[in-house]
């Protein structure tokens, strides 16, 4: 069955409050699970505090050409939320003021934002890393998007793209029929202009996330498997593989509920809690800006509409690095997803 967004279905999980209610007390078993804050306390990490603002992550909007089963954004073609030019300009101001070294562009499909290229041109400069989180398939959708890899190259952008597995069955099951073949086509196009090739300085990284209710494999071992298989089957090269754990929110939460996996999955995450991973969570060195300019500790909190604690600096127009550095990070039960096993972040394992 073709996947659609929770929003388009008017699904109850479209409401972040409903998601939090489920995560906290959906079943008797879930009520007995320890609270994430308690676990932080036992690790001496409560309240969770920032270590810096090294990554300025922007969600340009929730529109996407794909509708993946596990999407924590509930992105899809029907989502119209897009960052305004005004908010983009405010982001530029903040990026320049703090001289951000890493700007991470995500969505939806960030390439679908009409100002994507303009924005990158504004912030691009030597020494600054600009990451585009691409779903790959967008890059082979039509001539307009087929030209994007050259644009990425021109600005030496890091391309970080989703590929849940090195085979069609698993990839298409999670991301929709035809995704694997189109992703390989896009990867080849990126390889052709130097991305993922040694010595070009054009990083091409892949993101793995489990196609189901289990934790990711060891990142190093899986990267070797991906490299061997993608090379053997398609002659495709890439730099790093990042393993990401699925967080139990949005459409992945729907999947867990529908497949009766929620209790077991939450227990698995809690049992796998790793203090070292908790110390390295990405919210400690990231700020996430949503399409409407609101500031969050991470993209997941953004989807749950849990903004940063600092009321005086909660919108990009009030961005103040010093205030934000002194905030307590907002946590809830979904955070167990980032602290399980080897840890999980937008840059892969953390422990």
């Amino acid at each position: 069955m073709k996947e659609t967004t929770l929003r388009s279905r008017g699904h109850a999980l479209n409401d972040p409050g409903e998601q939090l209610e489920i995560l906290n007390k959906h079943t008797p078993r879930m009520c007995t699970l320890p609270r994430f804050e308690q676990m932080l306390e036992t690790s001496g990490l409560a309240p969770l505090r920032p270590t810096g603002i090294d990554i300025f992550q922007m969600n340009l909007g929730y529109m996407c050409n794909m509708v993946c089963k596990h999407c924590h954004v509930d992105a899809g073609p029907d989502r119209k939320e897009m960052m305004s030019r005004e908010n983009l300009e405010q982001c530029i101001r903040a990026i320049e003021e703090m001289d951000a070294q890493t700007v991470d562009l995500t969505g939806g499909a960030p390439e679908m934002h009409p100002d994507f290229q303009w924005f990158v041109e504004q912030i691009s400069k030597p020494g600054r890393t600009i990451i585009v989180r691409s779903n790959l398939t967008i890059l082979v959708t039509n001539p307009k998007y087929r030209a994007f890899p050259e644009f990425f190259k021109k600005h030496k952008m890091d391309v970080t793209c989703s590929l849940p597995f090195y085979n069609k069955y698993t990839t298409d099951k999670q991301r929709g029929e035809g995704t694997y073949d189109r992703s390989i086509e896009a990867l080849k196009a990126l390889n052709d202009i130097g991305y993922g090739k040694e010595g070009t300085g054009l990083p091409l990284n892949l993101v793995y996330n489990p196609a189901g209710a289990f934790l990711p494999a060891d990142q190093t071992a899986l990267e070797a498997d991906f490299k061997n298989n993608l090379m053997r089957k398609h002659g495709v090269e890439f730099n790093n593989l990042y393993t990401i754990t699925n967080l139990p929110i949005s459409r992945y939460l729907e999947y867990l509920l529908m497949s009766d996996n929620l209790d077991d999955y939450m227990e698995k995450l809690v049992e796998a809690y790793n203090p070292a991973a908790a110390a390295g969570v990405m919210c400690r060195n990231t700020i996430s800006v949503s399409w409407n300019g609101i500031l969050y500790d991470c993209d997941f909190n953004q989807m749950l509409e849990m903004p940063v604690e600092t009321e005086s600096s909660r919108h990009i127009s009030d961005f103040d690095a010093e205030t934000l550095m002194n905030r307590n990070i907002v946590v809830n039960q979904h955070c167990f997803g980032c602290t399980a096993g080897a840890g999980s972040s937008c840059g892969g394992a953390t422990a």
Partner: protein
Amino acid sequence: MSKPYYESGDLKKFGDIAEFEPELAAKFFDYYGSVFEEGELTAREKALIALAVAHTVQCPYCIDAYTEASLQKGANEAQMMEAVHVSCAIRGGASLVHGVQMMNKAKKIGM
């Protein structure tokens, strides 16, 4: 309905076997842990072997445990089904190869 012989929740109680005999249990679990560590075989290869053996011994606990372990070690569904076929082939082959014994006997006592 009467209680089934197998309860999936019992898998989590595996460690409880120590209650009746702690020393042997400790030795077994220690050994078990070492067996599945990364060695000359990778952890994923070991999980796939365990999955195949689980099907041979038809242990529902082991099938549950090593299906999840295989996925979590980065195996895919096709690899896992191939492992089950290996189990099936050896098991079926083991029956069939005894056909030679049957033939030997039949030929000996037949005319």
